């Protein structure tokens, strides 16, 4: 018994000190210090289209994608790349419940100038758009950061579409509105969305060409 006590006593001391200190922290931690939100931030609104699916929305596979609006070029291969040519482009523009627009799948992709995997991915995206566009795929890519990790600018967008000869929708996302889906460091994010329901079919991080294109191919083959 004495030996057991010798074993237990130092342990008990350490744990008692740990628990007592932790209790102090817990007590001190109580209390409300919730920051006040300015009224102008509590306004509702956004770019919700009246014809867009209603929530609940989510960010995981199987969830319905919430609408979002951006400024960019719908088809950079046509027209100039000046600021005056920017158009408002929303996810709702690609929503096609009846199939009347001919859209079947949407590939939503994020890109940043510093991101080597994004560049590698965009090197082949123009060709993929030519191949899969007629079959019902629409590509929308959002450029969110520059080479230094700062918000992307008009200059970055112009340089990007000219470098990669983009023929798919390319928009600016300086606020990184798609941050709900993945952290900026994990770019590129690829969301494959069913245009008839706006449900997320697949969500991938990184340049996953081996997985993305066979999946798109198989999905487009379905009626």
């Amino acid at each position, binding site marked *: 018994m004495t030996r057991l006590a010798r074993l237990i006593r130092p342990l008990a001391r*350490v744990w*008692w000190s740990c628990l007592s*200190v932790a209790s102090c922290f817990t007590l001190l931690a109580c209390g409300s*210090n919730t*920051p006040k939100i300015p009224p102008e931030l509590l306004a509702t609104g956004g770019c919700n289209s009246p014809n867009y699916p209603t929530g609940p929305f989510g960010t995981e596979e199987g969830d319905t994608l919430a609408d979002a609006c951006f400024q960019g070029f719908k088809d950079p291969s046509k027209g100039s790349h000046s600021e005056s040519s920017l158009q408002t482009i929303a996810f709702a523009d690609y929503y096609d419940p009846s199939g009347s627009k001919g859209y079947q799948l949407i590939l939503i992709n994020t890109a940043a100038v510093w991101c*080597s995997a994004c560049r590698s991915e965009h090197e082949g995206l123009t060709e993929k758009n030519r191949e899969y566009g007629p079959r019902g795929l629409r590509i929308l890519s959002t450029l969110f950061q520059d080479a230094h990790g*700062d918000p992307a600018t*008009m200059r970055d967008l112009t340089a990007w579409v000219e470098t990669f000869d983009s023929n798919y929708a390319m928009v*600016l996302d300086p606020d990184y509105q798609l941050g709900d889906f993945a952290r*900026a460091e994990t770019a590129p994010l690829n969301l494959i969305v069913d245009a008839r329901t706006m449900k997320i079919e697949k969500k991938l991080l990184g340049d996953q060409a081996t997985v993305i294109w066979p999946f798109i191919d198989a999905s487009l083959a379905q009626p």
Partner: protein
Amino acid sequence: MRRSRNHNLPRTRNVWLGRALALAILGSAPKLSALEPVTVFGKPVAFDVTNTSTLSYNVDNRDTRPNQVSTLANDDWGMFYNRLNVLANGGSWQAGLRLDNAWFFDSPNPTQIALDLWQSRPETPGGAPAPVYFRQKLNEAGVELSNRYINWMYPAKYYFTYASPGLELGVGDVYVAFGRGLVLTLRKLDELASDTTLRGARVTGRFRGKDFSLRTTAVAGSLNPLRVDPASGRYLGVDSSVTPGFLAITEAGMPRAIATDFVPDTGDCKTFATCSYAPDRIFGAQAELSHKSAKLAVQASQLLRTTPLSNDVVRSADRISTGSASFELADLAGHGGAYLEVALQDLHHADPTTPKLPLGQAVYLSVNVLAGPLTLLFEGKHYRRFFPLLANISTLRAREFSLLAASAPPTTEALFIDTAYEGFNTCVSGGRLRGDLALSRIVSVYSWAGYYQTFAESVANESCEVSKETRNRVLDTAVGVELRSRDRRSKMDISFGSRADDSDRPLPTDHGTTNVFYREVYTRHTGTWFLGGPFSLELQGWHRRRHQTLGGPGEPWSEGDELVGVDYAPHWTVAAGFSYSTNPAVPPTYVNGQLGYRLSSDSSISLFVGQRRGALRCVGGVCRVFPPFEGAALDLTLRF
């Protein structure tokens, strides 16, 4: 909701809390004395108890970027992290328990993060309206914090082992190392605070003949990494949807995914945003036949996965089978040794849309030659579609754990190399030759040269297409000198190295078109000088000049770390550290001070105050990302 409830307390209070805790621990520290054996069922059982506590507080680590939630979510948090190890040794058997607990006494507030981002938001065209921006950042911060800074206490490791001359049996958490790590390797890496085991069972049998011996090992269980990352406060959570049957037993008491105000419990780990880990089941076996210094072995492992949480080609596989054969000659007539291992790997995907990859292959060769004062070591590798057994982590929800793996194919590079980017080691051929020459008892010189062609570094290339477009050519060289004093109390190692990593792929930049490449020159040194009496001086540094055209700042930059310490034997150590970087993406300087006191040979207390640069740290190809740290950390280790 189990989130810590206080946020953004005045900083002065935390300072006082830290002092109070330090005093409490010191005041209650028991007298250190070895525990005497306890008689259990008439037999003596020796106990060994070690308790390691860390109290840390992180202030603003200066990595804040516009519109990025994660760069504010790692500021102003405090943690008490305790690891209690109890070992009972009864001679032929041992039993042990490691109990971890993390208590977070301060953490960031999602509303405050969203407000701070809104207030510092730069004016850029294409931005969302302010309420939309605020709501989106609030939700993003809420999700980001939902699996960080959560209090947990859990049985990190427990085991029982029995050993006799012919049989070894382990139940609970066991380590495994087959061959050189191509097939299966689970071990503890103190340098990276990594400790991954297999929770299950291991049986080893030994049979000795007249001229040969046979050793067979079988393991089965689920992968068990440490669940709390003390550097980021992130934890790995499981839920019942990924712990059926046997896994419900191995995951009993481990951290769970939790619902918060921002994350609903969907009942399915794949869509439950705080469920970041689904344990894989792993089976492995090895047979090793030895004759004198020759050893022939075959080993195999199979990883079974039910719910892939990430969609990359390795983590989305539901079955990964790997097997290898190895041959080792430990003694070449007193002039060295050789080792050869040849392995195959098959990835199976349940998802029919994922294309079937051809069989992965790996060949690893190591030859060392001893010729008087000269020692040569050659290591070569040829890997095609050969992947590490990456753990089933959601890289989206717990990216700090994304490098966790159950195997580590040899890199053949120097241990500290941290510039083998992306899938470098999955599709590569090359090798490295190192020579060490002892010029005298006090001076030896060494040098190495390595050349590799990798096809998965600057492009995603899981199928390992070998072509000029996917190729990077890497030349890694170094030269160094080791000096020792005649009494062996002082020593110095200084080296200079370079790395050139080129691809043929053009890269348009503001200054014209260049190629995708990485270049580096560096110097490393480590040394101890005996100053006389109880004093010695320690010096450690690594200074680098780097240039990365893609993924880096574009322009060349310098960075380095220097640590200078004085050891006052037998108790005190004092050290000061300085780091710098001219990379515009990170702060330019970092300063810190460290004070240590050894209570006994196994017990110590140390205090770190200051700044530490964020970095990717690698040990032999196993890497871990350490975020930048600014604040104070008090470590106390007591062994009884």
